[in-house]
């Protein structure tokens, strides 16, 4: 046994079949629909993935897993991303499923995981609130026990894709009398519950997100994920999957290849291609290097998770590096495109049909959600480097 980095090559044999699956099943209208509505999830596509066992690839049989090769499934997700279809709802759902696999009861695993793998269930994340984002443990939404039920009151912010989700994975305060991290519990709240309301929020990247409101929403105790007052630990399991090892997103082609193709095919007034300009080539070379580093950091996190670990520090590093780098890359890429860099997808003749301008705006959120870069740096500083904690200690 020796080091082996051959992940991309392992997928290579599945790429053609994955592309064929996408060609046969993907309706180009869905791309337009996602842009038009800002809903970055297409239920019809997910149903087809469930039908063919792609959602269930790699999951245990008893929870609804399929025999489909997980590498084929990953290649399909890559091909879907490459075609321009986003699956943000499935990405959050997969995080929650992995969390349930780690901390849920046997009944919950059988119920939720198998329903999700059949394509019948989608989960949004309900962590942030109007007054708490990075300091997520400061959540004020409450859940109060009433017999065998819990009564939930409060408001969540950035409950993305909740408009098509059947559940919200909700962080709620169940004990106000202990330090803030120690009085939290996680619930799966159905979005058809009486007392649940949703309002759209529109974003710079075009995605629709939501504010969700909970007024005397009742859920059974069976909807509680993990132990009472242990929600902080449960959410941190989910955050590990969000930062380092989540499903979705292309592992193969980065934007370096996109902008290089544009630069090769575009000539300036002097007849030379844009790629012949060393200033352009240098920036593309740098983007390619940093994309490779981001891929490797992410690959390491996924590899550690496959070994059964919870790569908190490594996942934080992967997300920190890749998100910070991608913002630099999109800024550089718009510069390389020059004046045409401002053209949006609606504009006739926009470079790469406006894809890069769109992604430039979308990339803004990547250093904010799922642990802002500042939070991730503190995780690395404290847990990897052993530096002293500088945030205030947990308070009430």
């Amino acid at each position, binding site marked *: 046994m020796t080091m082996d980095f051959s992940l991309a090559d392992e997928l290579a044999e599945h790429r053609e079949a994955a592309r064929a699956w996408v060609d046969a099943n993907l309706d180009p209208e869905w791309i337009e629909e996602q842009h038009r509505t800002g809903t970055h999830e297409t239920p019809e596509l997910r149903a087809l993935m469930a039908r063919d066992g792609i959602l269930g690839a790699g999951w245990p049989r008893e929870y609804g897993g399929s025999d489909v090769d997980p590498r084929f499934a990953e290649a399909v997700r890559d091909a879907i991303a490459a075609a321009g279809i986003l699956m943000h709802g499935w990405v959050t759902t997969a995080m929650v499923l992995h969390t349930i696999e780690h901390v849920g009861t046997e009944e919950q695993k059988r119920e939720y995981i198998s329903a999700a793998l059949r394509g019948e269930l989608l989960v949004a994340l309900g962590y942030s609130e109007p007054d708490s984002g990075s300091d997520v443990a400061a959540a004020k939404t409450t859940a109060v026990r009433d017999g065998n039920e819990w009564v939930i009151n409060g408001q969540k912010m950035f409950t993305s894709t909740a408009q098509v989700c059947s559940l919200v994975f909700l962080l709620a305060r169940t004990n106000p009398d202990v330090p803030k991290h120690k009085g939290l519990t996680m619930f799966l709240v159905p979005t058809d519950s009486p007392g649940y309301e949703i309002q759209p929020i529109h974003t710079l990247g075009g995605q629709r997100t939501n504010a969700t409101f909970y007024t005397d929403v009742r859920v059974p105790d069976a909807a509680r994920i993990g132990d009472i007052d242990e929600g902080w630990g449960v959410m941190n399991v989910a955050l590990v999957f969000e930062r380092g090892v989540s499903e979705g997103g292309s592992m193969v*082609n980065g934007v370096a290849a996109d902008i*290089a193709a544009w630069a090769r095919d575009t000539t300036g007034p002097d007849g030379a291609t844009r790629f012949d300009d060393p200033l352009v080539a240098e920036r593309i070379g740098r983007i390619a290097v940093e994309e490779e*580093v981001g891929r490797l950091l992410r690959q390491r996190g996924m590899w550690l998770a496959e070994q059964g670990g919870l790569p908190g520090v490594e996942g934080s590093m992967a997300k920190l*590096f890749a998100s910070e780098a991608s913002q630099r890359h999109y800024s550089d890429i718009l510069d390389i495109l020059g004046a045409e860099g401002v053209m949006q997808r609606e504009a006739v003749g926009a470079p790469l049909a406006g894809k890069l301008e769109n992604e430039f705006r979308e990339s803004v959120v990547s250093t904010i959600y799922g642990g802002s870069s500042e939070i991730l740096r503190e995780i690395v*500083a404290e847990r990897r480097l052993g530096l002293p904690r500088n945030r205030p200690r947990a308070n009430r």
Partner: protein
Amino acid sequence: VDLNLSEDQSALRDTLRDFFAKESPPDVVRDAEPLGFDAALWGKVADLGLCSIAVPEAQGGGSAGLQELAIAAEELGRCLAPVPLIEAAVANNLLASLSDAATDDASAVAASAVVASAVAGERLATLALRPAVGSVARLVPAGAVADVVVAVRGDELVLVQQRDRRPARPADAVANLGSAPVADCVVDGADVLVLANGPRARSAYERAVREWQVLTAAALVGLGTKALEMGVDYTMQRHAFGVLIATFQTIQHRLADNATALDGARLLAFKAAWAADEELPTAGTLATMAFLFAAETAFKTASESLHFHGGYGYTLEYDIQLYFRRAKAWPLLLGDPRAEYSRLAHRLFDSQET
């Protein structure tokens, strides 16, 4: 994917970490300046067979791969060991490959003889990183202490015997930022032997330069990792405004960014070594990527760790300056990194079908 070192590789790393920590502490590094060569340490490194571990066993080497050399280079980098292990290993691999390919002509015999004596620790070979201009290869790493220099002259790959380099004299070296045994080498006259020419010369030389990039990347990862530790250690001791400066967020976050980039640089360096050992078509571009990223990361890390030392970082007394200077100097011997980024982009994307 498997990111574990093998048992043998782990054992090699542990052995070399102990070896360099014991044999190349900061005072050894300082005593070797300005030449940057410790003959006694070189003797010990040669005794370990490190500079020929990737040479085939049939030629007296260890038949290991670039991964094992990268492990050695990382440990060397941690301690700034004043020995040209990377250059010697790359030159020996190159000479071994040429003598292997054609055993009947004079150049192959000569290469064999040099490999045999290098493996035996009798001669030190190095590689000129840039083609000779006229009859001079400029700023050759280890050129001040090498008995044998392999260089490109026109479309020829040549071998030059340097008869007066050892015992090394500081005056032979070009004074330089990294206190490395760098010298201009004359590639002319009776001591020059043509090893190969045309495409064979070019491909052998390019492969050697790529190996140098991978191993230098690994050495810079080791350098950067130690520089980061020095930054962490200092900020955990130094008080300002009544608290440890390590509690300041601006310091913590910069250290965390550097730790993250170093993890990435290490993964990339070892991926490049793996790709070379597997002879993948991407080995060449990965070598350059690893080199460029490690160079940038090591310099940024050493530079910021020096900064966190405050005024002490600017003094010669503190060791962080030793790391800072080498972080800039080691990779620069290949040329302007921004030009290398530009060439990399063309190698990656000039004829991409996607």
